[in-house]
């Protein structure tokens, strides 16, 4: 427990700027900048006069007339709708080829919140940040609102159909879509293509899994992706597969992975996760042991692992990787069929080797399930290449593009663009005027998934149904309806869909039930392996290992776990949610290693001053990254530990065109074109600094330090934990001894009286072993609680408003990327029973409830910010500006003193976008503090539900938004006074891992954490400092000063 955690290099080195920042509550000067008050033309006296006058005028104006409000009822109220009461409809999130079964909360006719569908055995109610944010996309102001032809609005859908009927007559049509998992849609597409001879359907996934598909065809004779059961895998070896963040069906994997990561007290066993990669991915940061290698060595590492599990000698890898491969192979062989190896490589050769490893350990049929393959990724690169050739050669006369954007996300977007120009008829069904849609002749925007009927078959027999939750907002039509119409079928899609499923399920009742549940699943899950062939292995191994070393610098393109492939790029909630590793918002950038930083930009992060200059200043040096044969990209750099020395990493999904939306404009650069033949590992890259140029990167959350108080977060190694299970408890006992010890600490550690909580006492427990940092809880919180978007310029001023943040701490030696260990800690208001914020509020705007809630009353708050100052967890947020447009003053948002807010903020205040607001939560105005409320509106609703049903409260009545969003169930919440509640059970059964952040302060938090256990013997390298290091240093300095004085 004696290691030093750091969030940034300044904290690691304890630099001067860091000390300064630690001293200040808000890391900036108070906002008297430029022509502020001091130089204002209006002298103070005049100012006071104006204030007096306007207050009096406002009072008189307000007093004279009460505005007349109207209450307009329905003419004929729908039977299932009670205004003010939410309805929940099961539907399916489909974005590109990602499919997640969800339920949508519909309040007064508008969907306002998405939750996972707990009836799905695949995701089990889990969601990702993108799923949570998808409801905001429905109200995106950049959505196309009517059909267009040649840039002009077409008056009606019928006119559009007529126009297209003529254009498509006799044409050979290519319909390009992401992987279609919908059985009805597939049938409709087949019927449609039959009408147009020579036509074809091309499935194109922007993030290609073609390598896995081809490899599996070679190894198993199936061009498909199997199900990976991480819930059974006691040893997981990931070769750069970000399976918790972005890879394949990551929501399912998060759920499964968590099963063996939560360490029970009775049986302290957990899975072991090895990770080999080049950059620092979110999944890698969660691994027990992590080894870095050059991106071009992916094949060699895979081959080495194969050799090791086959008992052969390893060659061609670095010493550290060799050690890792040996360890991994040893564990894989020890656990045999309870092991699983996955690879994120785009190369079929590497994937064939991985298949061979899995076969060698017997994972085929156990952790790899071929009886229920994953159907969501079927796009094959070759199909797209052929299509482009055929477009060029004139074999294709018409291209219909649905939910694909190849001009943006195809590695050779320029080639596609040129080919598109040669096609006579081009139609796009995309929802916005994106890079591809801007180039087509005809546009018929499709509905958002929340406006559509549909279905998705995630795995064979596992169906998730989609039903509309709102009428289409604009003149749009879903693809299925359009195709039916264009193939001359008079049936509407809704009827078609209903007929299809009524026939399949046998009766209308069964159909209604299925629609209500949202999912149809087989009675018993199928499991089994597939016939395996090693025929291509030798060839693949030769190809994979022969790969030439790729120059000095190599590049990895990756998806951020929050933003993903860029389909939802105009979503301010996603853009403002910090990346789990870099904590940066609103941009992409080039990630470089500390050692490269030294040589490239001359920043030695071991040197205090240099590190300070780099970290404190948001303006980062700009570099030009050149890939041979490609347009260079200039981006700012961020130095992140744990990255292989000469590897660069850039996130895709940024750099959208201006029409894609007001929020995404200016956010980063497009990195897709840097991929070579679709491979995200790029060799022979050159990098050079653009002299004298800087670019501001808005990194949230690194400014909040804990002044070396490592009692904030606790972790142990599994072996230590097994040997001394109660080490953490002993540590706590020791620490609290002077104040009464663990038992009497609550009562004796304070001079304040102890208030009882007679009925309910809310409490939360967060298992750090199951928190991966993915951010779905953060977005869920934003959606549920109307948390304001502040825009990049405000994040730069540390004015972000997130109620829940995920603190990321590194430990280890930055010079050795393999030594870096990461820990994520969701940090929210701890609802302290002895809260320091409460007793400093001069107006009692924040106080404690008898249920243990730290209450924040906005209408009482006068904005002194004393509470934020006194909060040891720094979870209180101040509304520095009128972010929500909630103030009654017009033009209050853009002012000289407060500054101008970003366009993204104005976009969030659009009449349309505001429809997403939760009517049960106050929209905060300028000048008040806000913070996590434990979703008090849900608590009140749950209690009321129980009261109405004349029964006691159960765990299922109240779930906070963050708890519900978490696929790994890291968060449990409930009534601590009830001994049988989930939270009480978790706390009772995990006494040894339980700790409270900064417990010694006697703030008595109601949020408890379960310490992280790492399944490794690896000593975390780097600085092993005592927790007291900070104060010791201080003392040293003081003594020195004294001496000098003397």
């Amino acid at each position, binding site marked *: 427990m004696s290691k030093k955690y750091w969030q940034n290099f300044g904290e690691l080195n304890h630099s001067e700027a860091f000390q300064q920042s630690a001293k200040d509550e808000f890391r900036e000067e108070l906002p008297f900048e430029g022509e502020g008050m001091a130089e204002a033309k209006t002298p103070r006296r005049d100012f006071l006069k104006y204030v007096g006058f306007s207050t009096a005028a406002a009072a008189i104006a307000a007093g004279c007339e009460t505005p*007349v409000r*109207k209450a307009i009822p*329905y003419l004929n109220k729908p039977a299932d709708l*009670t*205004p003010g009461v939410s309805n929940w409809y099961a539907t399916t999130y489909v974005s590109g080829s990602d499919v997640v079964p969800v339920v949508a909360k519909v309040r007064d006719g508008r969907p306002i919140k998405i939750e996972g569908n707990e009836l799905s055995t695949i995701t089990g109610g889990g969601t990702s940040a993108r799923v949570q944010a998808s409801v905001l996309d429905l109200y995106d102001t950049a959505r196309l609102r009517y059909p267009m032809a040649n840039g002009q609005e077409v008056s009606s859908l019928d006119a559009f159909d007529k126009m297209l009927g003529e254009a498509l007559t006799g044409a050979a049509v290519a319909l390009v879509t992401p992987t279609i998992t919908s059985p009805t849609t597939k049938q409709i597409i087949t019927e449609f293509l039959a009408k147009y001879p020579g036509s074809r359907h091309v499935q194109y996934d922007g993030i290609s899994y073609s390598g896995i598909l081809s490899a599996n065809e070679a190894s198993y004779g199936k061009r498909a992706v199997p199900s990976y059961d991480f819930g059974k895998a006691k040893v997981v070896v990931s070769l750069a597969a970000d399976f918790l963040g972005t890879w394949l069906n990551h929501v399912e994997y998060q759920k499964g992975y968590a099963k063996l990561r939560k360490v029970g007290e009775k049986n302290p066993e957990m899975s072991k996760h090895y990770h080999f990669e080049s950059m620092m991915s979110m999944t890698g940061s969660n691994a027990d042991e992590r080894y870095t290698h050059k991106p071009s060595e992916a094949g060699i590492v895979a081959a080495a692992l194969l050799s090791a599990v086959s008992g052969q000698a390893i060659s061609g890898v670095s010493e550290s990787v060799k050690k890792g491969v040996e360890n991994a192979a040893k564990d894989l062989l020890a656990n045999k069929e309870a092991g699983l190896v996955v690879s994120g490589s785009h190369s079929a050769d590497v994937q064939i080797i991985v298949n061979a490893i899995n076969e060698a350990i017997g994972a085929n049929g156990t952790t790899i399930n071929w009886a229920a393959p994953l159907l969501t990724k079927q796009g094959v690169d070759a199909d797209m290449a052929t299509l482009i050739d055929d477009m060029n050669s004139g074999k294709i006369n018409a291209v219909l593009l649905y939910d694909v954007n190849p001009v943006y996300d195809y590695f050779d977007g320029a080639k596609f663009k040129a080919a598109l120009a040669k096609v006579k008829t081009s139609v796009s069904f995309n929802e916005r005027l994106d890079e591809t849609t801007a180039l087509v002749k005809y546009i018929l925007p499709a509905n958002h998934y929340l406006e559509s009927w549909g279905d998705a078959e995630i795995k064979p027999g596992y169906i998730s149904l989609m039903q509309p939750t709102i009428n289409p907002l604009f003149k749009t039509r879903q693809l299925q309806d359009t195709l039916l119409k264009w193939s001359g079928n008079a049936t509407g899609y809704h009827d078609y869909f209903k007929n299809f499923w009524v026939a399949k399920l046998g009766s209308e009742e069964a159909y209604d039930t299925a629609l209500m549940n949202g999912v149809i699943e087989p009675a018993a899950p199928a499991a089994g392996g597939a016939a395996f062939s090693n025929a291509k292995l030798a060839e693949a191994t030769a190809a994979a290992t022969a790969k030439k070393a790729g120059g000095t610098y190599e590049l990895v393109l990756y998806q951020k776990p929050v933003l993903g492939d860029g389909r939802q790029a105009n979503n301010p909630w996603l853009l403002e949610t910090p990346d789990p590793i870099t904590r940066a918002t609103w941009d992409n950038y080039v990630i470089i290693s500390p050692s490269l930083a030294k040589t490239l930009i001359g920043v030695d992060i071991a040197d205090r001053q240099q590190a300070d200059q780099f970290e404190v200043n948001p303006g980062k040096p700009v570099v030009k990254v050149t890939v041979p044969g490609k347009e260079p990209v200039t981006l700012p750099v961020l130095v992140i530990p744990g990255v292989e020395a000469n590897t660069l990493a850039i996130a895709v999904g940024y750099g959208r065109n201006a029409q894609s939306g007001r929020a995404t404009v200016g956010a980063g650069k497009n990195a897709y074109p840097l991929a070579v033949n679709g491979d995200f590992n790029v060799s022979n890259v050159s990098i050079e600094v653009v002299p004298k140029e800087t670019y501001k990167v808005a990194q949230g959350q690194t400014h909040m330090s804990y002044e070396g108080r490592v009692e904030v977060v606790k972790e142990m190694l599994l072996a230590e934990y097994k040997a001394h299970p109660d080490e953490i408890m002993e540590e706590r006992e020791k620490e609290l001894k002077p104040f009464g010890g663990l038992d009497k600490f609550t009562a004796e550690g304070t001079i304040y009286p102890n208030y009882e909580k*007679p009925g*309910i006492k809310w409490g939360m427990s967060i298992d750090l072993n199951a928190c991966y940092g993915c951010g779905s809880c953060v977005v869920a919180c934003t959606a549920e609680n109307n948390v304001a978007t502040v825009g990049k310029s405000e994040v730069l001023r540390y004015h972000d408003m997130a109620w829940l943040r995920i603190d990321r701490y590194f430990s280890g030696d930055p010079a050795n990327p393999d030594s870096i260990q990461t820990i994520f800690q969701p940090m929210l208001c701890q609802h302290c029973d002895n809260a320091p914020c409460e007793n400093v509020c001069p107006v009692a705007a924040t106080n404690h409830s008898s249920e243990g*809630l730290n209450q924040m009353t906005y209408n009482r708050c006068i904005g002194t910010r004393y509470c934020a100052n006194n909060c040891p967890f720094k979870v209180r947020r101040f509304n520095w500006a009128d972010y929500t447009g909630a103030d009654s003053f017009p033009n209050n948002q853009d002012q000289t003193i407060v500054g101008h807010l970003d366009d993204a903020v104005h976009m969030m205040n659009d009449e349309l976008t505001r429809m997403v607001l939760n009517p049960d939560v106050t929209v905060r105005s300028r000048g008040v503090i806000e913070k996590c409320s434990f979703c008090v509106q849900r608590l*009140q609703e749950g209690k009321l539900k129980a009261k109405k049903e004349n029964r006691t409260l159960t765990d299922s009545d109240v779930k906070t938004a963050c708890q519900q969003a978490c696929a790994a169930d890291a968060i449990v919440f409930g009534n601590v006074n009830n001994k049988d509640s989930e939270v009480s059970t978790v706390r009772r059964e995990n006494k040894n891992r339980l700790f409270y952040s900064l417990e010694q302060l006697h703030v008595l938090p109601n949020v408890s954490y379960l310490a992280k256990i790492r399944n490794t013997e690896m000593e975390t390298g780097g600085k092993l400092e005592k927790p007291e290091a900070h104060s010791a240093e201080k003392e040293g300095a003081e003594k020195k000063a004294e001496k000098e004085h003397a």
Partner: protein
Amino acid sequence: MINHRPSAPKSIFFSFFLVLLVSGFGASAQDIAAGKALFISNCAACHNPLKDGTGPALHGITERVPDKALLHSWIKNNQAVLASGNKYFNDLYNSRGKAAMNLFTSLTDAEIDNIIAYVESVKPDEKKPGPGDGVTPAAESDNTLLYGILTLILAIITLVLLQVNSNLRKLSDDKEGVPAAEPVPFYRNKAYITAFAIVLFIIGGYYTIQGAIGLGRNKGYQPEQPIYYSHKVHVGNNQVSCLYCHGGAYEGKHANIPSTNICMNCHMAIKEYGANSEKLYREDGTEVNGTAEIQKLYAAAGWDPNAKKYTGKGKPVEWIRIHNLPDHVYFNHSQHTRAGKVQCQTCHGPIQEMGEVKQFADLSMGWCINCHRESKVNFYDPKTGEGNKFYSIYEKYHNDLEKKKIDSVTVEMIGGTECQKCHY
């Protein structure tokens, strides 16, 4: 006046129960009371004991249909009786435009007898007992003016006496040869000016603060609505249950203004305001033509009363909202009506006596809090099985109740006055 919880509602309820108890004469009072409750919840939407509504007037039904068994089967399942070819009921059915009556299969014979007993107990000449009948909130004697005048007179007398006193002193001083300063006229006397300023400040301050507190409060707000809808006629005279129209009050946050189709459930049949019914007057004393107001409803609903068809050209009525809470207040009707079992009149006043609705309470926070301090929670009693089981988790209070340390639990004791019960 924020510290006074209006006492009128209490007396209303007291008298309501009194009325319930004494209103029956013939049959047992209890039967009639039970029958009345059943009548209100099941029948009152369409029937009135004395007047024809959607359904016929029921008084005298036992004379018209002496066969009790037949009457029972009619009420339970009128369709079966019609099908059996009973002449009286078939004639009745035809004479009323073949509008079918709802089925009440769940009513027992005893319950039906109670209803009939109630219906027969209502005397044509006597005024029908309404929920808050005969209760007018005690007129508060307003003595402010009197006190004001008295104060003024006393002040003038004091002033005069002071003046006299100072004159006399001056005279005596003159007499004794004590040198005295020139007399200052009272309007330049610093003491007077100071006293006057202080008094002015206090009075002015008082009214300024009262005015400021009153900002945004609209007790007594009674706007003129687009249609003269009288709660007195519907709730008071015709006994329509509150929840029949404002069902949302039992389900969720909003009580909801009923949609036009709810109005039309009854008003498809009720086309005019009875000529013999009591006359309706607006606040300004002008008479209201009830039938004309019903015509306005038809226009809004898009109903053609002659053709008995919807024209499809309806437009929702734009009612003026009376009870407005600020945005930062969360108020849930069902919490109060269903969980808290609070009567509508507690907050909305004697609504059954109002023509156009008037805001009864000031809806200030003090007013809310006072009620939360006084109201008792429906605590679960394991012995009798009464009360809401939700509260069984409050072990401490249960023990205290048992030991008679406390006699009841108020809303405040379970946290009902904490900020985040209403502000979040």
